């Protein structure tokens, strides 16, 4: 029964991991991954899912990736962003993103200090994350209400306040993906490297 399979411990013996490596088709990648139970045959379903077109998903696909995949048409600068920020964001995030009921967004203090603040400027590794998050989640009282131009402008404003772009730098699908954030290399992955 599948039920008993589901409750098996997920750690497998090294010898059994061979099956997984074959499935993965890459010995190199396989060696970097933790040793997992070989892929179990998934329980067969009645296959009732409805095929849909790629086009029908596009309006709902609001994912934005570090390589720029998913960034929509549109543009904005920090000059425009300041106006939107003061109208929509400042009430919670404070003047110039200095913090309030919501977290502070601006600061470049070193992360190795005793009690460093973790801000967009000194912590966030990708500028595309700012766009992805603002578009789907902000402002808190009206998510998904901003235009793409507004989101680009707000992203530009936060980058400007953190000293990463100039006040007149235009953020669009091309320029935003090219931004190198100060803490781009500040993370290391625990998953997939066998560590705890």
């Amino acid at each position, binding site marked *: 029964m599948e039920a008993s399979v589901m409750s098996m411990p997920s750690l497998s013996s090294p010898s059994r991991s061979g099956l997984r490596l074959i499935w993965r088709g890459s010995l190199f990648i396989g060696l970097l991954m933790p040793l997992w139970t070989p892929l179990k045959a998934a329980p067969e379903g009645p296959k009732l*899912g409805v095929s849909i077109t790629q086009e029908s998903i596009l309006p709902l696909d609001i994912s934005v990736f570090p390589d720029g995949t998913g960034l929509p048409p549109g543009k904005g600068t920090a000059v425009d962003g300041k106006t939107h920020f003061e109208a929509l964001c400042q009430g*919670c995030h404070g003047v110039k993103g200095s913090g309030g009921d919501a977290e502070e967004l601006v600061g470049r203090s070193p992360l190795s200090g005793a009690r460093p603040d973790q801000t967009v400027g000194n912590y966030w590794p990708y500028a595309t994350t700012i766009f992805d998050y603002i578009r789907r989640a902000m402002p808190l009282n009206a998510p998904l209400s901003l235009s793409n131009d507004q989101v680009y402008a707000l992203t530009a404003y936060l980058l400007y306040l953190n000293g990463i772009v100039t006040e007149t730098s235009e953020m669009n699908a091309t320029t935003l993906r090219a931004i190198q954030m100060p803490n781009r290399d500040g*993370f290391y992955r625990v998953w997939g490297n066998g560590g705890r």
Partner: protein
Amino acid sequence: MSPTPTRPSDDLVPVAGGGLLDRRMFLRQGMMLGGAGLGLLAVDADAADFPRWMKTPGGPLTNYGEPSPYEKEAIRWISANAKAPGHGISWTPLHRLEGTITPNGLHFERHHNGVPAIDPEQHRLTLHGLFSKPIQWSLEQLFRYPMVSRQCFVECGGNSNAGWHDEPIQTPVGYFHGLVSSSEWTGIPLSTLLDEAGLQPEARWLVAEGADAGAMNVSIPIEKALDDTLLALYQNGERIRPEQGYPMRLILPGFEAVLNVKWLQRLQAVREPLMSRNETAKYTELEPSGKARQFTFIMEAKSVITQPSPGFRLKGPGLYQISGLAWSGRGTIRRVDISADGGRSWAPAALQEPLLSKCFTRFRLPWRWDGSPLILKSRAIDDTGYQQPERSTLIAERGQRGYFHYNAIVAFAVDSDGSLRHVYA
């Protein structure tokens, strides 16, 4: 003639400092000890009468039951943003519960922008990206799929984070460690749905997205999605409640809760993670070096004594049962040790069966308190051999700025008046 001294039975000889007794004692001597206890409760026969609830009809039947009105303290405590009441957390009152199943109304909550009021008729689950075809299901369709059940804990990556503070927090156990709960989840193995959509071999991650106000999104490694991940539709036998993800959520046994996406509506198969806010700015752990740990998905072994615990008071010297919870995101709890002398000596607790992987394990140990001040601790060991670390060890490795994944040994000081305090010891 002086009375003949009686030698205590072997079971009443402490097995570790501070009065810890053998874990099998209650099994062997429960009847005898119980009888002694009843003697103290003898009532005056003249004043005896049947209680009033036996002399009048009771209340009516109910469509959905509620706890006794005398149990008003067994509630979640809430901590939310003043300007955004749906943005916050509520803790499971672990100190008021027993056994290993969390009642549905007491499962902890973490919402990033409130509980959405989802109409199940309109809700769809969409899979797209690196599949052979984009595909979508309604709930009606999903209910025809083969389901399985499993018990497991769900723990917020930020659970117990007050442990990083310089001063020990003084609050009941549940409001310190209660961003963890354990349930029986029933649903469809996610692998069944991934198979049907034709998952491509180059897919390494699934970006999961909820249908809440904020479309909470996070990347899930494909190995886990294909292993024991469930698309859960039921919790403890009933449909998942709105605050737990109605009508459907992901359950990734042993993984930090943020990946167990509630109100799931979309899974996008991709090569590289999305690097969403909740896998970069949050749920990462800054270390003293200035570098941060990322994708620290697995919740490591942890234990905490739930009784006796801060906020309660021991009623004088005598026999007590220590009771607590242990769990590990890597597998099964193999052993829980308890110390009543600040960690100088340890005794193994009895583990309540069945022992389930990535699930709450209830541990218990009899203890005879002599009334003197001492320090209680518990430590969990899982079936990978990993042992829950002392706080000083954890901090030496991670510093104190990581916020997430605090799993150090918890210590309570018992004072001579029977009160308990959380301490670092």
